[in-house]
């Protein structure tokens, strides 16, 4: 297994944990991004950190997107007191549509043997619509600028 394969595997394992905490039936692109931000000592984590997007900041941005989107339908998260639900540690989640699209973008743009953490980050950030770009916009992140910084760090 290549170094990138090992990296990708640990990202997906972590992303699955994030998805379970969300009670999500699928692993989505925003779970992948949280997992990328949580992998210490990687180029991808460094670029995110330099942009003020550490793991906690991303988590916060995603929560704000969730609350903001619910508010558009007249639902306030403050009205819910959700007790924490137990998760099945054995359950395997399947990749969601946004996960698959990110993987496709990465696979079509680069040769497999060239792949690094930055390529995965790039593919995740390139989603134009959905939870992730909305969360970044709400957090005041210049997504296009961030994509350029990731590209130049490759």
């Amino acid at each position, binding site marked *: 297994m290549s170094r990138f394969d090992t990296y990708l595997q640990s990202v997906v394992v972590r992303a699955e944990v994030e998805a379970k905490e969300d009670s*999500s039936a699928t692993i989505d692109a925003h779970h992948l991004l949280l997992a990328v931000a949580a992998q210490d000592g990687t180029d991808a984590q460094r670029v995110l950190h330099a942009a003020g997007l550490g793991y906690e900041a991303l988590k916060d941005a995603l929560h704000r997107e969730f609350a903001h989107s619910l508010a558009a339908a007249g639902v306030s998260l403050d009205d819910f007191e959700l007790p924490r639900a137990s998760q099945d540690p054995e359950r395997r989640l399947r990749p969601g549509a946004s996960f698959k699209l990110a993987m496709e973008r990465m696979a079509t743009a680069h040769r497999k043997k060239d792949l690094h953490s930055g390529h995965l980050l790039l593919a995740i950030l390139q989603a134009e619509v959905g939870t992730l770009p909305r969360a970044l916009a709400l957090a005041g992140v210049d997504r296009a600028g961030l994509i350029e910084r990731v590209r130049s760090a490759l």
Partner: protein
Amino acid sequence: MSSKDPADALAAVAALRRLADQLEDAAVEQAMRSGWSWPQVAEALGITRQAVYKKHAKRLIAAGVALRRRG
């Protein structure tokens, strides 16, 4: 719906589904911990007993929740 932006409306759908999933996990667990049976929970949710069991039994057993089989 106060917003006219389709992006907001679509995001609201995604967020409501996510909230419903979170609420379902929490509510089913709470009911089973309070001694509800699978058929009761299924009827309250409007889905079949098999569906609710398949979706939630493993995680509740793993969490050590004492489950009642019969209504």
